[in-house]
């Protein structure tokens, strides 16, 4: 299983904090993003944004980053701490 987390504006927009996906069908972050962007217009809007950030196992990653069973992904808007 792959765990996918959403934070801040994305969490609110999707009404989703966390979801689980079967690992088999996905080999990169891009595969997950493509799958999720087909779940509705809000989902589509998030993955369309050039500045959407992604972390794999709590480290910043890219669309090309590989993923495997057990990984934790997180999608979030640009950070605004400090």
């Amino acid at each position, binding site marked *: 299983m792959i765990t996918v*987390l959403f*934070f*801040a*504006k994305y969490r609110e927009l999707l009404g989703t904090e966390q979801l689980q996906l079967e690992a088999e069908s996905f080999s990169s972050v891009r595969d997950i993003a493509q799958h999720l962007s087909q779940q509705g217009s809000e989902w589509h809007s998030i993955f369309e944004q050039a*500045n959407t950030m992604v*972390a794999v196992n*709590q*480290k*910043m990653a890219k669309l090309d980053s590989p993923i495997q069973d057990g990984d934790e992904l*997180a999608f*979030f*808007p*640009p*950070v*605004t*701490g*400090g």
Partner: protein
Amino acid sequence: MFVRVQKEDFSLKLVEERFSEYTKLQGAKIGAIVTFTGLVREFQHTSEDQEEVQALILEHYPGMTESVLEQIAQTAIKKWQLNDMLIIHRVGTLFPTDNIVLVAAASAHRQDAFDACQYAMDILKTSAPFWKKEQTNKGERWVDAKSSDYNAAGQWITQDLQEN
């Protein structure tokens, strides 16, 4: 190195305690301490129709925030040969005048401590997974990332590339 994400407030006293602990163990090696404190202002925006901030809600990615802050401190300590570095970031609901973030660097000479603190804040602003939501007199809204913050962070990367 001391890194913490917490709901509770902090005070600069912590910096003095932490670095005097270092001195007890290592001797009088610290010649310069620079601290940066970020606070909640009433008006975060400079546009004409200023919205008065009533509260700021700070969300974060537990686990990843701590490891990003540790990474920032480790990199700064190596890059400027610091004696020590401390980073504290608050989460939860904050109000105007509340502290948000504290960064402190100790070094032999002042320029290192100044540079390390600025580096830590610039990278924190663009890499540490915190998000601010403002509650203003006109409603709620997520704070947008500022391009000036990305430019500030980008300078360090450019500098690193030039040095290598």
